[in-house]
Structures are given as C-alpha cells and as structure tokens.
C-alpha cells in the first residue's frame, strides 16, 4: 500500500554567509494512511522544516516528498496545517475564520454553514462562534485553528507544536480533545512537538530527531491501545516508552 506521506532521502540546506547550513540530512520516513505520528527532538533538528516540506511551504534541496505517491509541489487544501502561533485572522470572527478555506473552494452557502457549524461544534466553540480572536484564550484560539483546518476536510493534518505556547493543564485537555476528534474523524497526522509526554501520549509512532545536521535518530513504536486515557498516561507501560523516548532525545550519542 502506498504510504500517505513519504519522505525519500530528503536533504534541505540553506545558504549562509559562511557556506551552507544543513537543516535536514537524508531523511526517509513513511507515514501510513490514518496514522498518528509525532516528531520530537531538540531545537534546530529540522522538525519544522520537515513539516514545512509536507505542507508545500518549503521545497527539499534533494530527495522527494510525496503525498499519496505524488510529489508535493505547493500547499493544498487536502493538507491542513496548524501553527504554533494559531495564525487566526484577527479581523475575522471564529465562524469567519473557520469559513475561510471553504469560501476559497466556492462551496454553496448552505452547505458551507453546515460544515462550519460542525467543525466549530467538534472543538466545542459553538458559544463563541461570533467572537473575535482577541477575546479568546490561547487554548480557545488553537481550538479555532483546529476547527479551521478540519472544516476543509483535509486527509492530512500537519501540526507544528500546536500546544507549545499553552499552559500544561490546557495542553493536556487539548491533547485529549484532539485524540477524541481524531478517533471520530480519522486523518493522517504529522505532529511536531518538543514535549516527550505529548509525543508518546498521542502517537502510534514517535520519530526522534537529532540536530546538526537534522536527521532521524530513532523511531519508537508506541504499542498502546486507543483511546488513550488518563489511566494509561499514568501506567507503567506508558512510563517505559516515555523513558525510552526521553533517553533517545536527551542522551543522543554524538
């Protein structure tokens, strides 16, 4: 079966005054359809570059990035992206933000409204549909951004440290909510984080990256059943995998 997302021997370099900076060196990774993969690693390991290439916002210097077996040539609505800084349009209400992508696809108004309502309900923002982003808390802003990505019904969700700017409590709530949403409407998810707990809790596979040059260090299978629960988060099985990931993130052999 063709993997949903496929990185094949991908290298990304940026020109610098003192020669070249290698952000990613020969990265190969396959992500299956409806799989939830997290990527964790120290800063400067090229996680965001990896996601940017899958989104079509950046191009690989050498190698191929394929989605559904076809090379990525630019951004597209079948790949939703969620940014750490929320990236909501501050002049639009929650509803209009969520509607933004649907309007671009010229979906008829009645159908558009139904899909917007559904997406807003999915993230529990129905009571704030007509609020401007400035009146929302960080967690609510990110839920709105998730609704905006879900509304266009993408097959792939690319999430770049989406909960990185939130407090620990809100983060845990949003992790549960994301998994809940994902279990109701499965997508292929590539989720970047610097939080080891988050990486293990969400994913079926955790990709641990190393820096200078950015590369894949190890891939850890998370052999835990969904739905993931608080109980599971506190279990020894979870702890074992978490420790394994922790060690490969913080004690990488040079």
């Amino acid at each position, binding site marked *: 079966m063709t993997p949903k997302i496929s990185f094949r021997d991908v290298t990304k370099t940026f020109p610098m005054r003192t020669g070249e900076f290698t952000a990613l060196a020969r990265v190969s990774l396959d992500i299956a359809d409806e799989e939830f993969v997290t990527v964790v690693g120290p800063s400067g390991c090229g996680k965001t570059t990896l996601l940017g290439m899958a*989104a*079509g*916002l950046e191009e690989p210097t050498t190698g191929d990035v394929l989605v559904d077996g076809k090379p990525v040539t630019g*951004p*597209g*609505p079948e*790949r*939703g*992206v969620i*940014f750490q*800084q929320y*990236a*909501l*349009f*501050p*002049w*639009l209400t929650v509803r209009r933000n969520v509607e*933004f*992508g649907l309007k*671009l*696809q010229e979906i008829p108004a009645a159908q558009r409204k139904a899909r917007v309502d559904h997406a807003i*309900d999915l993230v*529990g*923002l129905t*009571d*704030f549909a007509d*609020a*401007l*982003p*400035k*009146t*929302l*808390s960080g*967690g*609510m802003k990110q839920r709105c951004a998730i609704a*905006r990505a879900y509304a*266009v019904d993408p097959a792939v969700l690319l999430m770049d440290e989406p909960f990185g700017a939130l407090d620990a409590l*809100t983060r845990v*709530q949003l992790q*549960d*909510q994301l998994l*809940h949403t994902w279990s109701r409407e499965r997508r292929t998810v590539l989720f970047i984080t610097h939080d080891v707990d988050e990486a293990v809790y969400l994913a079926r596979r955790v990709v641990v990256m190393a820096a200078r040059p950015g590369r894949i260090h190890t891939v850890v299978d998370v052999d835990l059943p969904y739905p993931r629960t608080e109980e599971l988060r506190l279990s020894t099985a979870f702890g074992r995998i978490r420790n394994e990931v922790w060690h490969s993130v913080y004690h990488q052999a040079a």
Partner: protein
Amino acid sequence: MSVVAVPEDVATSRGVVRRGGWRSGRMLVLNLVAVVVGFGVWALLSLIVGVQGLPGPVEVARRAGELVADGTLAGDVLASLTRVLVGFGLGTALAVPVGFLMGWYAVARGLLEPYIQFFRTIPPLAIIPLAIVLMGIGEVPKVFVIFLAAFLSSVVAAFQGVVDTDRTLINAARVLGASDRTIFVKVVVPASTPFILVGMRVGLGSAWGTLVAAELIAAQEGLGFRMQQAQLYYDLPTIFVGLITIGVLGLVMDRLLLLADRRLTAWQERR
C-alpha cells in the same frame, strides 16, 4: 465533548471597558478645567497685566462674530478645507496603491523607493517656491504641495503595512488554498489597515500644516491668507480667530479619522 473553559479574557475585558468609561469621564472634566484655566490666564495676560497689543478673549470673540456675520470666515474655511481635502484625498488615494505595489512587488519597491525616500527628506514647504514658479499662483501649486505632504506620509505607512504582514497569516491562507490575489485582498489589505490609518492621521496633520503655510505665501482667500492680511494691518484679533479656527478644524478632522480607525480596526488587540 470536552470541557469548554470560561474565557477569562472576555470577563476581564468587560471590566476594563467599564473602568475605561469612568476614566474617560474624569479625563473629560480635567480637559474642560484645563481649557477654562487657559482662557482665564489669557484674559489675565491681556487685561490686567496688559501685554502690549495682546487682544483678550472677549475682543477675539467679538471679531470672530463679525467675521462670521459678514461671511468672511465661512469663505476662508471653505477655501482652506477644500484645498486640504482635495490634496489629502488625492494623496491618500494614490499612496495606498503605490504603497501596496511597493510592499508586494520587489521590482516596484526597487524602482520607487529611492524617490520616495528622497522626497520624504524635503519638507513639502520647501517645494512651494518651485511649485509657484512652475504652476502659477492659482489653486494648483497649493493643492499640489498638500497632495505631496499627504502622499509621502501615507505611502510609507501602506508599504510598511504590507511588509509587516505576519508571515504565518500568509502561510495560513496559502495552506487553505488561497491564491496570491486572494492572499493580497483577504489578508494583506486588512492586516495593513491599521498602518494606513496611522499614516493618514500623520498625513492629515502634515497636509493641514502645509496648507496654512502655502496660503501665507500666495492666496486670495483662505485662513492663512486672512492671517497674512491681518498682519499687514496689525489686526491681532483676526490673527487669533484664524489660529483658533485652524486648531479646532485640525482637531475635528483628526478625531474623525481616529473614530474611523477605531471602527475599522476594532479587531486589534490594544493595550
């Protein structure tokens, strides 16, 4: 469904508004007190201390009444306002597309920026002698320098607005499938609005200042011209009426723009 958190921000922002309302009420009282005290000091200086030739508030008010009654003031105000609004309107109308062009296309920026930066360093007033020689002493040179003053301050603002548009917002639109055109219309234009409005306020102030100076040099009517005439006849009350009218009109125009700003950019997070 997960827990819906009570948005603390919503609750606190309401509190801020209420306190703000009370504060602005108190501010208004303080502002009024300042104005009354100011008039008092003025009256004191002219009547009791008797500064040589300085007219008091009563004298100025009487002169203002005369100028209103014979229609001179209305004529002057109309002449001056027309010049400012035409110059400012044209300047802003051209500045916004040019600024957008410079922000969006590197080629346009490379070609236009040297001229804009150069002319920005020349006070528009310094252009007046040249403008009069080239365009005569009619309306054209006056409107032209006002146009230039408004254009130069707004164009830089519009340009800066485009350049400062948050990269992530542009990317967010791109990944939702927006074309360059859509990104420009739906993201860059609204994101630049606050910058443009600030530029317009600066431009209006600059246009107003340029107008009066232009009228001082060459005009047959207008507030600046009236003051220039009054100076020849040592008519200080008229000069005062002119000054106060200029101040009040400038203030009113600025407040109107500020009001438009508040309405158009209510979505901004303000401190």
